[in-house]
């Protein structure tokens, strides 16, 4: 039975996609049908994902692919395929489950929106594209779904299209990620040029198998870096992270979907998928491309964790935290901890989905207020939201033992400590853990503790349709830690294709104390600093210039505005000038020459040919008029003419004889 599901892997993305198409064809009024279709499609996708997950659990190192020919040109056939391995299977389950929770949440959250059906169509499309992305067995097919994810994010970030900021954010997200995608595309072409195939696995001939990797040779580093450019764009890594916080303009379920299950996970997944290219020719686990990945990740993680400290928008804080966590995952991949990075990606999918949906619940209760300075004291008013949010917050901060995020974070820290090239990333990541705990504590205190401020006055607990997904996700966040502990590292071994062993002795590691201390420092500092926090941030009071620097996102957007965008504007102005004066002048000159010759022939036509014809007609007409004047109708004049003619004949006769 399970084989049937594996053989029909393509059904997983196709079902939500079909649902999306059907919903699009529905009228705006069929709200129930739209939501039901989307959710049913997602449930089927989730069931199928679990069905294909099962065989990968039974066989360690399971890998199965089905390739098919898309089209043939000349001798070469372009082949695509679907791939099932632990990485894909576990991503499928996570994406389908988190998306399902978000879909259910959206039913309540978007209830009053007039474009309710369109929203669900886009959501389904988004989820379908992401599900397709993880099961692709071809870089090209992956790229197709990759761009579909980009399109869906564009449609959803700009969902409230009547808001200019939303339209701008959608454009920014699309264009910024497109810069990275260009690199990805070039890398793909290069890869195809070297290895002649874009399939990952193809019975020994795939690009990720030994023969394909051998053909890459020295160009592997460049190819890997170009593909990584795509991941930088999608996963919001420095320096292309600027779109991600702006993407908060979309509805909150969209933010949740982008940050937890789809979109940003795609970049990390991509690096993990083509990891053999990155690690080709590694000397004790270090290659130039992986080193770049590590440093980009470190920069991203620290910069965004710092920026998150000084944001006021509840969703923006979470957005920067996502950027930071993605940086952490990249570091993990870069230092060789692929399994750890993917585990964190999965755990992050659950708890960040939970946090975003929780923030959606808060925003919903506060009448679409997103500024944390206007909230406060919501703990008593929204107990369910508070509890689930706290679970998410502790998972994100890395509170040890009970929360999945903590175990995966520890794995990553462990992996960084083993990196042979440098110890600096390890220490910077330890700092990142403290910062994460700090900004999450700040957010918790502002939102749920302290006095009730303006927007919180009339807040109330959200309806079950909003809280149920929160509870489901919170349970997952806690439950997932069972398979993450060092005592029974099931997920780790599952991903790396080994059989897990149960060793309780390993449960408590030295690293556990270290993270306990770090998180305690973070949360403790947070409570100390923000305990009596009012409308002005304590940090702002202490270090106003630093706070302003962070609040304005380290001026990075401004910097881009002054450099890259200014360059763009200058180029636009230059080409406008060239167009107006240079090219236009050329065109006008050509037109002038043409017009001159035209005038010449016109003159010839008018004066020579037409004039001759005109004169002939005038003469004919004049003669005709002259003759017609003789036809006076006067009988006597006719008679006279006859007489004159007669006389003339007579005279002629006389003259002749």
């Amino acid at each position: 039975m399970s084989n049937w599901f594996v053989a029909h892997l393509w059904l997983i993305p196709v079902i939500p996609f079909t649902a999306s198409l059907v919903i699009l064809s529905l009228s705006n009024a069929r709200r129930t049908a739209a939501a039901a279709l989307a959710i049913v499609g997602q449930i089927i996708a989730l069931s199928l994902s679990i069905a294909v997950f099962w065989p990968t659990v039974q066989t360690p190192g399971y890998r199965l692919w089905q390739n098919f020919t898309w089209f043939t040109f000349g001798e070469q056939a372009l082949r695509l395929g679907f791939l099932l391995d632990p990485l894909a299977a576990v991503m499928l389950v996570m994406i389908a489950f988190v998306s399902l929770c978000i879909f259910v949440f959206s039913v309540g959250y978007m209830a009053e929106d007039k474009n309710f059906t369109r929203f669900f169509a886009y959501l389904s499309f988004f989820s379908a594209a992401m599900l397709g992305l993880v099961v692709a067995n071809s870089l090209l097919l992956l790229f197709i779904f990759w761009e579909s994810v980009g399109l869906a994010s564009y449609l959803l970030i700009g969902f409230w299209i009547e808001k200019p900021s939303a339209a701008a954010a959608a454009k920014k997200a699309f264009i910024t990620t497109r810069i990275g995608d260009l690199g990805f595309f070039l890398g793909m072409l290069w890869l195809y040029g070297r290895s002649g195939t874009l399939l990952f696995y193809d019975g020994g001939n795939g690009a990720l198998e030994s023969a394909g990797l051998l053909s890459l040779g020295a160009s592997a580093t460049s190819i890997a870096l170009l593909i990584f450019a795509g991941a930088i764009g999608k996963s919001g890594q420095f320096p292309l992270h600027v779109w991600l916080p702006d993407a908060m303009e979309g509805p909150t379920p969209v933010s949740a979907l982008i940050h937890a299950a789809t979109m940003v996970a795609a970049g990390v997944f991509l690096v993990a998928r083509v990891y053999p290219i990155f690690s080709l020719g590694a000397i004790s686990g270090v290659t130039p491309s992986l080193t770049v990945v590590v440093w980009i990740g470190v920069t991203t993680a620290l910069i965004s964790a710092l920026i998150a400290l000084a944001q006021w928008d509840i969703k923006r804080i979470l957005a920067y935290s996502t950027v930071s966590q993605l940086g952490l995952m990249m570091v993990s991949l870069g230092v060789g901890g692929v399994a750890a990075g993917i585990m964190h990606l999965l755990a992050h999918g659950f708890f960040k989905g939970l946090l975003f949906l929780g923030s959606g619940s808060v925003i919903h209760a506060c009448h679409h207020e997103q500024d944390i300075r206007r909230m406060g004291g919501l703990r008593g008013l929204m107990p369910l939201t508070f509890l689930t949010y706290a679970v998410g917050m502790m998972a994100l901060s890395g509170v040890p033992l009970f929360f999945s995020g903590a175990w995966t974070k520890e794995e990553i820290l462990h992996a960084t400590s083993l990196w042979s090239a440098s110890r600096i990333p390890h220490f910077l990541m330890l700092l990142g853990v403290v910062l994460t705990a700090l900004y999450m504590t700040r957010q918790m205190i502002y939102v749920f503790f302290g006095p009730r401020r303006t927007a919180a006055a009339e807040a109330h607990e959200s309806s079950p349709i909003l809280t149920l997904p929160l509870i489901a996700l919170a349970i997952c966040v806690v439950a997932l830690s069972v398979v993450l502990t060092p005592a029974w590292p099931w997920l780790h071994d599952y991903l790396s294709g080994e059989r897990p062993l149960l060793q309780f002795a390993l449960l408590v590691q030295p690293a556990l104390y270290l993270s306990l201390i770090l998180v305690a420092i973070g949360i403790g500092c947070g409570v100390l600093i923000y305990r009596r926090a009012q409308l002005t941030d304590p940090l702002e009071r202490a270090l106003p210039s630093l706070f302003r620097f962070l609040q304005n996102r380290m001026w990075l957007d401004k910097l881009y505005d002054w450099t890259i965008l200014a360059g763009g504007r200058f180029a636009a102005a230059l080409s406008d000038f060239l167009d107006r004066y240079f090219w236009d002048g050329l065109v006008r000159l050509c037109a002038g020459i043409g017009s001159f010759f035209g005038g010449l022939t016109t003159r010839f036509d008018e004066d020579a040919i037409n004039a001759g014809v005109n004169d002939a007609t005038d003469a004919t007409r004049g003669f005709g008029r002259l003759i017609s004047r003789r036809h006076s109708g006067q009988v006597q004049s006719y008679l006279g003419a006859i007489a004159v003619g007669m006389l003339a004949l007579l005279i002629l006769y006389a003259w002749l004889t």
Partner: protein
Amino acid sequence: MTPTLQLFLIASAALFCVGLLAALSRRHAIFILIGIEMMLAAAGLNFIAFWRFGPQPALPIGVMFTIFAIAIAAAEAAVGLALIIVVYRHYRTTNVDQINQLKG
């Protein structure tokens, strides 16, 4: 004064000219008809004159011609008068200056 051919021809030419003048200058249709009749008469006179002073004055050829011509002229005058009456009924006038529907 002996009657000669020239004398008759001059008389005939004079009669023709008078008829022509009448036909060309009068406005009344009946006078034009009269002019035409006069020109016919001049032609008849020419016949008689050429016959009388011709090689065979004994045979009544010229008289016969002229009598036929007069008979035809009478018929023609009848047709002409009938035409004039119809024209008059149509236009309520016989002034040829006002009857100019033949103009091209």
